């Protein structure tokens, strides 16, 4: 496909205001086809793309060239319940995988909000997380093996159902996971599965101030019930929900925490009260909880609604993905608020609080160049502060071309050299996904 209209649809990912139309798009029918395409493409950048839900400008042709869209590699090839693994093609969608695993009583835990549409290939490429990763861990913790097509079209398996190194001396799959399409094209994965929790309880609590919110978070992360998720919404986020059609009567100027525990009924049922007590004793007068699917859905609803609501009220929003030591939460929130106020546009903040993974959303209009410039300035200052307090640039969205400029804040000269050596091994001319992760990764024909 090469017509301008056809390129338009592939010009951006979930970060819709930055567009990079490719020169051509290829949709291979299967993995062999994909390997053939890579082997014959010479002298053009190649960008692999799954469902294009990334929020960091990962699967876009930043330097033009060819986008290879893996939408047709969507077979779940095998589920092995005794071995607790499955074999899937890169274009398999997360929710469909979950539906396929449900009859076995098993699950693949990472749960990014884009689960209804995102692909496992994109998840592995960006080492995706999600709300329930606080206890269960992120994508990388569940990848047993990766099949990769390298630059010359050769196909290699790093790991497999057993999740080891295979015949290799080094564990190359570790470098592949989270490599954001800069090393090769993933075609197939072996994923670790785990039994579905027998039962879960969901809790929601609101707090008038940050100090009591923090007390609750600190109590939860140390609780022996090991909550699966600890989600925080700031007052702005709560107000957004409350002024929408999804209003549920939450106080608009309060922080809100949603948390969940799961496990065998015999364990979680006796933990309910003590978790509720942590939430209450931290200072909440409104702690609600339930174990029925409906109650749990309602309690989680406000958090789930966020992404869409942001879309409804703002032409564009920039979401950051910093991870911070939790003790720095107040400092960072204040910085976000001050910066947003100064720039004159609102910031709505949600957080995977257990992991310290902060998502401030700055609402702006990209058609006004001064707003774009302002929001990028804020991003930079925020990231500098995040790194200074011991945090990191990205927890689950990846670096893409959105945050690559900030990598110099994180890596010293020797560390940077170690990092840049990795693409030199597999992709020295930066044919795969140039300008991503590190800005010096520029393709030269």
């Amino acid at each position, binding site marked *: 496909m090469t017509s301008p209209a056809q390129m338009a649809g592939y010009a951006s990912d979930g970060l819709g205001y930055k567009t990079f139309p490719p020169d051509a798009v290829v949709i291979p029918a299967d993995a062999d086809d994909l390997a053939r395409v890579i082997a014959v493409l010479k002298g053009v950048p190649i960008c692999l793309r799954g469902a294009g839900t990334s929020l960091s400008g990962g699967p876009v042709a930043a330097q033009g060239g060819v986008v290879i869209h893996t939408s047709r590699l969507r077979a779940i090839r095998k589920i092995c319940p005794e071995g607790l693994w499955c074999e899937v093609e890169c274009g398999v969608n997360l929710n469909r995988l979950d539906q396929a695993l449900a009859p076995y009583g098993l699950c693949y835990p990472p749960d990014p909000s884009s689960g209804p549409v995102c692909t496992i290939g994109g998840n592995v490429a960006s080492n995706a997380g999600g709300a329930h990763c606080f206890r269960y861990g992120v994508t990388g913790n569940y990848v047993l093996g990766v099949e990769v097509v390298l630059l010359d079209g050769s196909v290699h398996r790093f790991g497999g159902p057993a999740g080891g190194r295979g015949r290799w001396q080094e564990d190359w799959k570790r470098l592949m996971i989270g490599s954001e399409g800069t090393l090769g094209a993933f075609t197939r994965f072996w994923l670790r599965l785990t039994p579905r929790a027998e039962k879960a309880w969901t809790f929601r609590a609101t707090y008038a101030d940050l100090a009591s919110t923090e007390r609750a978070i600190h109590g939860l992360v140390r609780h022996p019930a090991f909550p699966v998720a600890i989600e925080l919404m700031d007052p702005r986020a709560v107000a957004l929900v409350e002024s929408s059609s999804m209003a549920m009567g939450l106080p608009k100027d309060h922080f809100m925490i949603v948390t969940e525990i799961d496990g065998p009924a015999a364990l979680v049922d006796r933990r309910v009260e003590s978790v509720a007590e942590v939430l209450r004793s931290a200072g909440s007068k409104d702690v609600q909880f339930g174990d029925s699917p409906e109650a749990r859905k309602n309690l989680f609803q406000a958090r789930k609604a966020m992404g*869409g609501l942001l879309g409804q009220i703002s032409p564009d929003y920039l979401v950051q993905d910093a991870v911070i030591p939790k003790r720095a939460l107040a400092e960072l929130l204040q910085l976000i608020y001050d910066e947003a106020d100064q720039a004159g546009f609102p910031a709505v903040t949600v957080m995977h609080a257990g992991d310290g993974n902060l998502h401030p959303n700055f609402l702006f209009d990209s058609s006004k160049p001064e707003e774009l410039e302002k929001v990028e300035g804020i991003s930079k200052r925020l990231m500098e502060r995040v790194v200074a307090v011991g945090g990191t640039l990205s927890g689950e969205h990846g670096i893409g071309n959105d945050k690559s400029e900030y990598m110099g804040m994180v890596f010293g000269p020797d560390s940077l050299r170690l990092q840049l050596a990795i693409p030199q091994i597999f992709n020295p001319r930066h044919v795969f996904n140039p300008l991503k992760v590190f800005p010096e990764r520029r393709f030269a024909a």
Partner: protein
Amino acid sequence: MKQTAALPQFDPLSACVHCGFCLEVCPTYQLTGDENNSPRGRLRIWREEAAGRLEAEPMTDFYTSECVGCLACETACPAGVPYGEIFEKTRHEHVATGRFKPKLELKVAAMAVGYPALFNLALTPVRALRSLGFLPHPLVFPGRPAVLESTAAYARRFMALRKPDGPRVALLTGCLMEAMFREINFATVRVLIENNVRVVIPDDQGCCGAFQEHTGLDGVEALRAKNRQAFDGHDVECVVSNSAGCGFALAKTLDGKPPVRDVLGFLGGLGIKPRPRVAGNARVYVDLPCHLVHGQKADGIPKAVLDATGYEWELAPCAKDCCGSGGIYNIQKPENAREILARKSAFLDDAAGEPVILATSNHVCMMQWNSARSLVRRPFQVHHVIQLLDPGEKALLNS
């Protein structure tokens, strides 16, 4: 710790944020894997063209023509993008400017539905053939319609015999439904009357306009104006429709004056009289029309109504996904429609039960499912759910 900058106001027409939630539910994206052939892709192309960044080109026309119009993307969209509205407007423009040419038979049919009496008369032979058990086309499903008596006459006759005194509703009889599949209208009248509902059938009602909406042809406004007049002043609680697509189109037309409800949803709120349990091994698989769940945004068909059929039932797999009918999509894009149907109907081969009945609540979906007979190896029946609730003429008269 407070922020001063105010939150913006909600604007439902603000554009797509490109999150991609629509991809996985879009039948043409599932079919082709091409992102341009998805709501997110189409919206992007239309927006680029509107902003002058993209010239009008055949691929844009092609992707626009590929959309089934199932509106599953509206349900999936977290940002509330009114895709259906934007799509209809774009399709209409493409037809008006010659960028897309609907098939001739569709143009003729679109013209014909504007004249219900003529349309009814013209299709008399089809009703006659069906009533004799002959099916002139794979899309035409079996049934025994009255050839001459109209639904309006039939309803008047039964109203006089049974004299129900419950809620009063107007029935949308539809064009194709009345002209070809009248037996469904008759069954609807019987079920409503049996449940003590007073049925009014406004004489001068016409086509709901869905046909024009689907084809992008002119004339929707005239049909809507006619229906606004026809359904005005009958002192009814609501208009009921036995076709999800027609009901959706009429709802847009009447805009709540009076409200339009799907007949099954309406019956669900009444406490419907159940049919006796059906003995044996029969199993009903319920498919939900897109324009019921994604258009009218109903949760589905009420469980109480489905229980009242007396059958063992379950939802068909992927019941909220499109069957490929798309009103006239199966005529406009037969290959796509067939592939969508092939995937959706594959389960019937191994489905439990004998006989197996596929039940839905839209006649165009029934037509599409009927055409699956050449895809599915085993025999199966296609019914409207209202037909499974039908007491039958004799029983209704004798009770």
